[in-house]
Every structure is written in C-alpha cells, then in structure tokens.
C-alpha cells in the first residue's frame, strides 16, 4: 500500500500562565492509501491537537516543538501558509465534531458547499451550486437538490453533519480527518453516518483518520487503531489485534471498562484507577505509571518506547510498555 501521510516524532505544547501543557509528546504514525486509521483516546489526550496540527489549525498558544509531517512526500510544516491553503480542503478534508457550530448560520447550504469548489477547483458559482446539489444527494440528504437553499437552522444535527461531510468530500480529497464526527449525535443517527462514511470511502477510495473516544464506533470502521494516552501513542496495531490481543495495560483497561450491550450486564465493570494524567510535565518515566497495576521498577526509570516484541515482528503490533501483560512478566 502506498504511503500517504507520515508523521514523525511530533511534539506540541501549549503556553499557559504557569508554564506549559505538554499535549503531544513525540507521536509518530502513518496513513496509507485507502486506509482508515482509528485514533482512540480520552479527552485531553492530544488526539485532536495532533490532527489540527497537520493542517496548521492550532490556536496561537500552541507551539509545535519538533516533528515532520510528510503528506505525499512534502513536509507540511515547511510550506508557506498560502501553499498549505491549497492542500487544506482540497487534498485533506476535515469533519469536525459539532455540526451545530461548524456551519455559517447566515449562508445557505449550497453556498457553503460551493465555496471549496470555487476556491480549489475554479468552478463558476453556477456550476458549483449544481455540483453542491449532487453532493447533497451523495450524502443522502432526502431531496438534497431542492434543499441547497436551506439555511443551517432548518436542518437537524444529523443533516448538518451530512452537509459537513459533503463539504469535506467536495474536492475529492486523498485524506479526510474526522474528529469525533458522531459524538454529538444520537445512536440511530450515528449508525446512519457511519454507514454513509463507509459507503463513500468505498466509492471514492479516500483515506480516513477517524478520531474517537468510543471503542465501539472504531471497531467496525478502522483498519488500524492507535491508542493515545497523555500525548503518547501507547499502542498501535490492526483493529483485530487491538481488541483480541491488547498489549498495553491502558488499552486492556479501556476495553474492560467499556460496557457492551452484548454483555450479560451482571459483571462488575473493571476500572482504571486514579485520575487523568498531569500534562504540565513531560515525564521521564512511563506516563501511565500512576494508574498502572502492572508497574515495576523499570517503569519508574525509563519511559518505554513504542516498539514490537520479537515474537510479533510480522504483525505490526506496536506497544509502549516494559511489561508483557500476556506472559505476566517483564518483557
């Protein structure tokens, strides 16, 4: 598979009054053509910040300390903002979490979907409007063509999210970054949107990065999954390996802590003890140490790198832990 996006050793911090918040601490990952990468993590773990940084959409208080972001071989960090603008929306599309606030309330839907078409594809206003109608049908908005003159307030949350998807796919991007696109939606609407995205992906052959905190959503969607904790990728593997054979104690805890409708409901939920991590320091020990029940001496001294074990060289299963939870002893 061809490599599309290659992020290496990305570090991002935020300036705050008392120092810094270390949001992303050396994250590396790749996205191949026509692949869906799921990024799972809890709030504040740095998953959104990582993705925003790809398109230089970070707020001013953020600072990329180091790292390279290669998209089709070009380092996005070295591009001028003008050049990046040509990629943003055209080659990389973005879908945000909250469809209620991501649309301009005083412009009709057609105008908003037309905008990237006019800007990137040089279409005339009229052609772009016609194309917008087609896109609306493509994302299965009932009566899409006749609704392009509607305003956002006339649409429900699910419909608005469809409009945002239409905007993201308008220019046939190679990569779509979806930042918790279904979190604000109800489950029945969520399943509609997931079915739609799967379908569009098959049709258009786009690669997708799907950010979520919901292990259920990603299970049926992703090819590979990266689990983020405190700004570190702690585990990365094929989707089946993550669920069947989690190797990092955090992934393990996360899977056990999530109730499923398939469970009997009588089991007691296993919890991950403790509180979310303190991000004001970049620890030289394992970031999961304070909450880990497997921790031993080495975890206090060195931060484990993301690596494979000898026995799973072929499986591309990476995890950052000094302990082998499967064998019950240190690696």
């Amino acid at each position: 598979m061809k490599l599309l996006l290659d992020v290496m050793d990305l570090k991002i911090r935020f300036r705050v009054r008392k120092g810094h918040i270390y949001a992303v601490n050396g994250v590396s990952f790749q996205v191949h053509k026509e692949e869906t990468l799921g990024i799972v993590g809890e709030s504040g773990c740095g998953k959104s910040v990582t993705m925003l940084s790809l398109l230089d959409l970070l707020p001013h208080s953020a600072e990329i300390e180091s790292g390279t972001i290669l998209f089709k071989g070009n380092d996005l960090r070295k591009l001028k903002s003008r050049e990046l603008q040509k990629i943003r929306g055209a080659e990389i599309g973005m879908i945000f979490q909250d469809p209620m606030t991501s649309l301009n309330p005083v412009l009709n839907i057609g105008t908003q979907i037309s905008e990237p078409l006019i800007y990137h594809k040089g279409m005339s206003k009229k052609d772009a409007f016609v194309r917008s109608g087609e896109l609306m049908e493509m994302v299965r908005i009932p009566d899409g063509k006749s609704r392009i003159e509607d305003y956002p307030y006339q649409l429900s949350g699910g419909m608005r999210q469809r409009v945002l998807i239409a905007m993201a796919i308008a220019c046939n991007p190679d990569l779509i970054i979806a930042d918790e696109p279904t979190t604000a939606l109800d489950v029945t609407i969520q399943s509609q949107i997931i079915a739609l995205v799967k379908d569009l992906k098959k049709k258009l052959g786009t690669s997708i990065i799907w950010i979520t905190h919901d292990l259920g959503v990603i299970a049926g969607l992703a090819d590979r999954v990266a689990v983020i904790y405190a700004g570190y990728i702690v585990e990365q593997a094929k989707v089946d390996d993550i669920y069947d054979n989690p190797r990092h104690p955090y992934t393990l805890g996360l899977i056990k802590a999530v109730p499923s409708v398939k469970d009997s409901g009588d089991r007691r939920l296993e919890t991950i003890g403790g509180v979310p991590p303190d991000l004001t320091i970049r620890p030289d020990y394992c970031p999961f140490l304070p909450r880990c029940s497997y921790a031993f001496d080495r975890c206090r001294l060195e931060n484990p790198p993301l690596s494979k074990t000898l026995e799973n060289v072929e499986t591309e299963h990476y995890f950052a832990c000094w302990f082998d939870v499967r064998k019950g002893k240190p690696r």
Partner: protein
Amino acid sequence: MKRDPNATLIKVRSLTKHFPVRLGAYGQHKATVYALDDVSFNIFRGETLGLVGESGCGKTTVGLSILQLHRPSRGEVWYEEIDLTKLKEADLRPLRQKLQIVFQDPYSTLNPRMTVGAAIAEPMSVHRRCEKQQIQERVERLMDDTGLPMRYGNRYPHEFSGGQRQRICIARALACDPEFIVCDEPVSALDVSIQAQISNLLKDLQEKYNLTYLFIAHDLAVVKYISSRIAVMYLGKLAELAPRDMLFEHPLHPYTQALLSAVPVPNPKEERSRQQALLEGDVPSSISPPKGCRFHPRCPLAFEPCSDAVPDWREVDNNHWIACHAVK
C-alpha cells in the same frame, strides 16, 4: 436483587408536560413543546429503573417532573402515599431530603466559591438535620463513602477532575439519607475509564443504603449494566418497558429493536458481520409530533391505524409494557 415486587416507591400516572414557547425572531409565534405526554410507570423500592432515549425525547423532563422541579401540566406522581403534584412548594421541601438528583454536568452543578466540604454540608444545614459537630462527621463519612480522600474537604471544585466532581455531587445528594435519586446522565460527561468508576460507585451505594434510582442515559450499554428494568422513550412517550434481560433479548417495539441494533459493539469481527436495521430519517420535532403513534413515520412495521390512533400503553407479558399497534 432483594426487592419486593409489590413495594412501589414512586408511581407515575399520565404524567404530561407541555412547555409554551415563542418562536420567530421577535417571539411573535406561540407554540407548544409536547415534551411529555401521558406517561405512566412504577418504580419499585430498591431497584434501578433505566430510562433511555435519544436527545430531546423527554427523559430529563420525566426526572425533573417527578421531583416537581418542573410542575407537570397534568398527571400524578405518587411518592408512597403522597401525590407530589398536589403539594405546595413549602410542603414539598421536607420531602426533598428523600428525593434527590445527580445532574449530568459536574462542572456546572457545584458552586465554584464553595469548598467541597461546605457543598456537601449545605443540604444538612438547610434541612436542619443535625448539629454542627455532627455535620462535620457526616461530611467525612460521605466523602469516604464516595471515595474522596478526607483532606480534600477544604478544596474548591476547580481543583477536581470531572469524575471527582461527580463523586462530590453524589455525596451531596446522599447527605440527607435519600430514598430515591434521579441520576440524570451522571456518567455521560465523563471519560470511559472514569465512567466505569462512577457506575460501580452508584451500584455500591445502592446496595449499602438501599437506594432507588431512576437512571437516565442515552448509552444503552451503561444502562444495561446498572438497571434492573429499562424504559425506552421516544418523542415524549414511553415505547417499551421491561425487565433488563427481557428488553435486551426480546425487544418487542420496533424502536427498541432499531435502537439496540444501532449501538456499535466494541468487537471488530462482530461489527463487520452485523446486520443493522438502520432507521430512516430523523426524530421529528416535539413542537409538531406526528399524529397517532409518534414513531410511525420511521417505523418499518407501520400500517393503517398507526397514523391515526395513539397506541395504548399495555402490559403484554408479566412486567413487559409496550405501546405499539403492530405487536400483538
């Protein structure tokens, strides 16, 4: 679960709540939001009744109307032998000790200028339950019960994480020895690893103090984990109510079936092979709910009577209630 099926703690009869609203840029149009229409059910002592439904379906309105935080438009709410809807505010106040609530958002429900200890103590001094000395002891016990270290008593809410704040809210709700607690999406604002902690805590406290919960949530998996019976709501009406296992194994109402099939399962193999019954369309607005059965425009089973006649709320099996024309 040790409960006497006849010991009903809360009895809700034909509970209805309509909100008058004004629409248009200048509020020139009057309209009514039919938030809750003719809802009846019982809550047994010591059980957890889960209430699920999508946003805007009236779940929270049920909770607030039971506690008379909204005065219902019609209907009765019986707490033991008392009809709460008939009571004046002043007469309700002593009962509020027994009827408590935990809200969804632990960030906005704590006073930022009040220490945690003071927040937990406040209900006890408002209801004049005990002397100052005892209050301190009780605060410490409540903090211990809810898993908060004692030394945190003098800290302020901003120093706590979401999960810890929810613990504080729970401690405060427990302060006056309540019998019944409405848990209004108590875990949905929290991260998954913290959700499990709070769900377990609620279960433990229920056992310890023999509490009765109305557990409102939109996450079916969480509800399944915590409830003994589950009610499903759609657009201001109850669709189905059944004991937990019956609801999950033999859902009868087409909406319940669709809802259950929409929940993603954290298992890639199952997810890939699963046949989903996708619901078409969106939830209609509760300002102009559909006539007849409110689910009929999206219902795969809809036939003639569904668009005119409101289906009866009837018991089809022991403790299994449903409102649907198509299900016999």
